[in-house]
């Protein structure tokens, strides 16, 4: 298990993605799975950066665990910001015509679709969001 604690800002999204990729390097993760993981990390860390501490700033911890049987990666995002369950949000309507589609609101939905598991809990003043993907 490896973890990184870093200021939750949009500028740090790429650093977090690089950190996660480094942990996966040794496991021969398929390109498509790795890209899906990168996208999920981008969405979830950007969400924390934009909303958790707004208008102040704060820190977030990203923890990466690689599990065996089946080989999978579990990534946990922890922040001390406002209580927010992204999974409680209603899924967007993906059947709308182009002109009726709102700009945005797809990030968490993409994560839900691309990961094998996603869980949220609020504990001891912390938002704890965990994603799991078989690789």
């Amino acid at each position: 298990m490896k973890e990184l604690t870093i200021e939750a800002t949009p500028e740090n999204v790429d650093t977090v993605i690089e950190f996660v990729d480094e942990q996966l390097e040794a496991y021969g993760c398929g390109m498509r799975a790795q890209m899906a993981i990168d996208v999920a990390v981008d969405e979830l860390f950007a969400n924390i950066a934009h909303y958790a501490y707004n208008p102040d700033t704060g820190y977030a911890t990203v923890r990466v665990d690689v599990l065996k049987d089946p080989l999978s990666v579990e990534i946990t995002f922890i922040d001390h910001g406002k209580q927010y369950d992204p999974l409680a949000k209603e899924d967007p309507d993906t059947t709308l015509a182009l002109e009726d589609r709102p700009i945005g609101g797809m990030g968490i939905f993409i994560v839900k679709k691309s990961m094998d598991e996603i869980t949220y809990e609020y504990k001891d003043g912390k938002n704890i969001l965990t994603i799991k993907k078989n690789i």
Partner: protein
Amino acid sequence: MTVTTKMDGTKLTVSAEGKLGTSAAPELEKAVKDNIGGVTELVFDFAGLEYMASAGLRVLLSAAKVMKKQGGMKIINVTPPVMDVFTFTGMADVLDIETE
């Protein structure tokens, strides 16, 4: 991410290479915004795009709404991880997309 633009008459081609996430999306947005005036054909060439997050999707949806009024828009050379995002979100049904 590297973004290059090419104007050929009223046809604009925007090529993006690398990773289109939260940090890179504003660059793509600027390339579109600065050049879209008077364009009748907008082509995004994503041959070198490794992945796209929702921040990139937002730029494409905004561009598609503009182009619906002033011409056409197409996304070409879409790689599998990027196609996954179009499929999950139903954007594959409303955009003109050609895979690699």
